[in-house]
């Protein structure tokens, strides 16, 4: 059989012997009639992409798909994406993708393999430009997941096609690896939920691992906003909305700025500056948009036009103050989608013309808008301008009979906000004008994204309502760690192995930043104390019996003593010594039921304040490099004293906010056992100084103890034993009422009552630094 016969009419020989894979592929395809017909049609176009060596690799990959029983649909999908994207990606890359698809098929089956291929175009931006370099690496991630969790491939692909697009492959791979680890012992459904971004853990990991994502840059971006506008912004990343595409624009909701968790699809140079540009635009609104516009009976297209002119107006005003913003925003206009069908392209083009006022535009409508805007430059502060111009150009647009679909309209360029924050939509059901509906629709869509984040809605009430329901955040009865004896003061004996200590890992709750808003002033103050302490300034030790230098004062005193024939003090030297910190500290938080009470005059519960304070101090300790841990405890009888490690000694940095947020109070305070366990942990430390700092709101109490003195005496015993083992124990007591028990347990000098709870963070920090320096 000659080559030509074997290959069929579609296949032209590419050379002698260099086309074995191509031939083999045709042999495999030919027996499958329907497939063959379609395939023969595609082949010449694929072949033209070349080069021959890559075509060989591609053919081998296609053959591998067939051998993996990927099915006709998969093979045709492979051929069709190759035709579409082959020139941009190159056949070699597509061959690699095909091989990954075959591997996916072997582990997870046909459907995932086919889906993996059909999702490819959405991984590449418009026309496939720019982001293809690492597309293959993303496929490797899918393959990894397919190997371990076949059912998770489809949800994963959904995520990749939406929010995952803007992530680096490394970030994606880190997220997937974390998911496989976290669900290793769980059910398939758990894994699917993770890979579908349906669990809080999954979202958090994704937000934190996305290199270009908001989470990694939050602090710098907030600082930039504050520097430019003098306003401390509240910026929240929108939630990843599993599967469905996120609204890829920023939004302004009252005081809260919502940003996408990762930048929208843009060329990399722009994606890198996306947040900066977007927040600068929001800042311009914050400064120059005096009040919301009334939507009234306005049509959606008018709303879009007014918003567009307002955007241009506030930006122009901002650039008068800060001319450099033009360099930030300009490139986004160059990349904006101005050729889009319908009226969108035209509107975007007007936006560009209003930004580059010095550029003539060939379109008469756009040009008219530009002229109208220029005529008003001398009174740009006037907030009526947008409506004037929108009226004038809006009519013309109407006459052009270009459709405007408010549901698919997307503000261009990408850094601008979705405009919803600029408008007040009247809430009158008897005027069901189209504008209202559309506007309300989109508002609703937007709101849906974070149904369980009370902060993003700026509505503190909801946070409180839900409290009662969620007290079971500590696992009901965690694994037993150890048993401790308890001191029976009446009998004067220890009851051996009396208390069972269990480990409680607080489940991550949905709310992410309930305590994040600790008082900024206090935080700043603590930060500056820490910075000073961290320098580790050396101290001059005077009047030493040896040292590098004479202590002048001491020497002179000695000299005059000598003259007066008195015995001089021989300690006339001074030396410098580094202030050395070698300590291990444990912060132990009382999370018993009583900490659920609200602090008088505030909406915060005691536990919230405890946690906020401890977080601040813990962050400060981390900055100083002090080895420390944060534990919380509560009890329900002697069989169940639960300890949760919010931060273990070994964890390097300040613990994640979520772990604290998940701390729900409940049950009782069996202090002694918690103290014994803390002591055991600290006594094992090799640090010179070991510090145990207890934060509690009341006296020990447990459901199975009647004698009020019993637990107090036991705790007192525990403190004494801790001291014997070289652990310094101190207590910060909240409120004044129960201080007697506190003094009894810890000793009056080691008990620090804090009457005003709002003082707690500063007090706790101060106390810590005093103690740590002692």
């Amino acid at each position, binding site marked *: 059989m000659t080559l030509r016969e074997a290959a069929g009419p579609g296949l032209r020989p590419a050379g002698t012997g260099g086309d074995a894979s191509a031939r083999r592929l045709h042999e495999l395809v030919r027996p499958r009639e329907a497939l063959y017909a379609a395939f023969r049609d595609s082949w010449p176009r694929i072949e033209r992409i070349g080069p021959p060596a890559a075509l060989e690799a591609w053919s081998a990959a296609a053959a591998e798909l067939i051998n993996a029983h990927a099915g006709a649909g998969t093979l045709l999908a492979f051929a069709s994406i190759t035709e579409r994207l082959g020139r941009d990606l190159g056949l070699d890359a597509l061959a690699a993708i095909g091989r990954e698809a075959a591997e996916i098929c072997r582990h997870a089956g046909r459907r995932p393999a086919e889906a993996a291929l059909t999702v490819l175009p959405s991984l590449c931006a418009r026309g496939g430009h720019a982001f293809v370099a690492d597309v293959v690496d993303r496929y490797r991630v899918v393959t990894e997941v397919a190997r371990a969790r076949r059912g998770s491939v489809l949800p994963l692909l959904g995520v990749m096609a939406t929010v995952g697009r803007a992530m680096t492959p490394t970030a994606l791979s880190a997220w997937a690896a974390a998911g496989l680890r976290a669900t290793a012992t769980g059910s398939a459904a758990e894994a699917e939920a993770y890979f579908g971004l349906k669990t809080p853990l999954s979202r958090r990991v994704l937000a934190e691992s996305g290199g270009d994502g908001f989470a990694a840059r939050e602090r710098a971006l907030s600082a930039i906003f*504050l*520097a430019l506008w003098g306003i401390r912004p509240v910026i929240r990343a929108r939630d990843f909305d599993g599967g469905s595409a996120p609204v890829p624009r920023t939004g302004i909701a009252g005081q809260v700025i919502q940003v996408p968790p990762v930048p929208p699809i843009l060329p990399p140079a722009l994606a890198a500056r996306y947040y900066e540009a977007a927040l600068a635009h929001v800042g311009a609104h914050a400064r120059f948009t005096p009040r919301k516009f009334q939507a009234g009976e306005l049509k959606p297209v008018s709303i879009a036009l007014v918003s567009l002119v307002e955007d241009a107006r506030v930006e122009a005003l901002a650039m008068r103050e*800060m001319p450099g913003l033009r360099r930030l925003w300009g490139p986004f206009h160059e990349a904006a989608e101005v050729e889009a069908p319908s009226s969108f392209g035209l509107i975007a083009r007007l936006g560009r013309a209003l930004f580059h006022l010095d550029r003539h535009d060939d379109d008469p409508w756009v040009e008219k808008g530009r002229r109208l805007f220029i005529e008003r430059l001398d009174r740009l502060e006037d907030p009526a301008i947008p409506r004037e111009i929108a009226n004038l150009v809006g009519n013309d647009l109407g006459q052009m009979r270009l459709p405007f679909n408010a549901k698919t309209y997307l503000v261009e360029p990408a850094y601008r906000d979705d405009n919803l924050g600029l408008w007040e939509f009247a809430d009158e059901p008897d005027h069901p004008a189209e504008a209202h509906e559309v506007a309300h629709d989109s508002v609703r869509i937007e709101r849906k994204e974070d149904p369980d984040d009370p902060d993003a809605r700026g509505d503190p009430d909801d946070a409180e309502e839900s409290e009662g329901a969620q007290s079971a955040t500590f696992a009901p009865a965690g694994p037993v760690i150890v048993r401790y004896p308890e001191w029976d003061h009446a009998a004067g004996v220890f009851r051996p192995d009396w208390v069972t200590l269990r480990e409680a890992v607080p489940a991550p709750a949905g709310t992410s930043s309930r305590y994040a808003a600790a008082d900024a002033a206090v935080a700043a103050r603590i930060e500056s104390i820490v910075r000073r302490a961290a320098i580790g300034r050396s101290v001059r030790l005077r009047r030493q019996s040896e040292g590098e230098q004479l202590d002048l004062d001491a020497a002179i005193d000695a000299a005059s003593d000598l*003259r007066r024939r008195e015995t001089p003090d021989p300690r006339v030297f001074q030396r410098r010594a580094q202030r050395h910190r070698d300590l291990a500290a444990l912060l132990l938080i009382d999370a018993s039921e009583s900490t659920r009470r609200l602090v008088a005059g505030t909406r915060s519960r005691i536990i919230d304040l405890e946690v906020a304070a401890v977080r601040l101090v813990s962050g400060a300790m981390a900055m100083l490099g002090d080895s420390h841990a944060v534990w919380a405890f509560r009890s329900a009888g002697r069989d169940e004293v639960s300890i949760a490690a919010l931060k273990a000694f070994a964890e390097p940095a300040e613990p994640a906010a979520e772990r604290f947020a998940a701390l729900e109070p409940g049950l009782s305070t069996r202090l002694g056992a918690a103290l014994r366990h803390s002591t055991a942990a600290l006594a094992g430390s090799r640090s010179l100084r070991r510090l145990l700092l207890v934060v509690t709101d009341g006296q020990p109490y447990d459901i199975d103890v009647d004698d009020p003195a019993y637990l107090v005496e036991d705790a007192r015993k525990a403190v004494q034993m801790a001291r014997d083992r070289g652990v310094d124990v101190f207590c910060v007591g909240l409120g004044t009422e129960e201080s007697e028990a506190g003094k009894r347990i810890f000793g009056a000098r080691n008990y620090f009552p804090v009457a005003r709870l709002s003082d707690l963070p500063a007090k706790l920090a101060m106390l810590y630094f005093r103690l740590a320096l002692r």
Partner: protein
Amino acid sequence: MTMDAYRIGSEPYYRSVGDEETVFAAAYGARMPVMLKGPTGCGKTRFVEHMAWKLGRPLVTVACHEDMTAADLVGRFLLDPSGTVWHDGPLTLAVRHGAICYLDEIVEARQDTIVVIHPLTDQRRILPLEKLGTVVAAHPDFQLVISYNPGYQSVVKDLKESTRQRFAAIDFNYPDALIEAEIVVREAGIGAPIAERLVEIGRRSRNLSGHGLDEGASTRMLIHTARLVAGGVPIERACHAGLIAPITDDPDMRQALRAAVAACLQ
């Protein structure tokens, strides 16, 4: 002992920003101790120099630091061939000869050092010299001025209430944009447009004080930067060398400052 070394020859340039000269002159008239409060580099030292010149008093300036002892202020015995001789410290010098004594950044000194000024700041106006076993009554023209940076205070370092309450206070802050630009033009010898840009940048950096930065760029830093520009350094580079790099090593804060510079420059 002549105080000539402490006299100010020619008028120091000071651009008045409010009623601070009037208040100071009145306080001096009553020989009331004065505390100048304000962030670093906003003109406190320059103001005292200016007032000393205006009032025709010598000015003794002491930069306080944490290793400073009472002896560093008051004086000490020194050894010489004939034995020990007493040597007046700067404060004693000013007290004896009727100078204005300016204790710069007083909170840096330790509490036990600070207390030596107490008897000087009430009706007694005396300075006990413990080591000599004598007491010096202040010269009628003597006045004590201290400076104090409130943004800098910490739990560790703060003025005691008993010290604070002995002083009249004048609040200083960075001047308004136009005045600050005027000062930069004058001190750095640079054109107004560049000075105005630098002042804009300075104001933005101050937005970050207490939120990542201890303090924003001072007038002094703006003048430094302007001098670098006057010396031929391109402005963006000068901003880095003159007001980003010295302020912070925190990458996030540097990013914010760079953004402010980029936004404010043409």
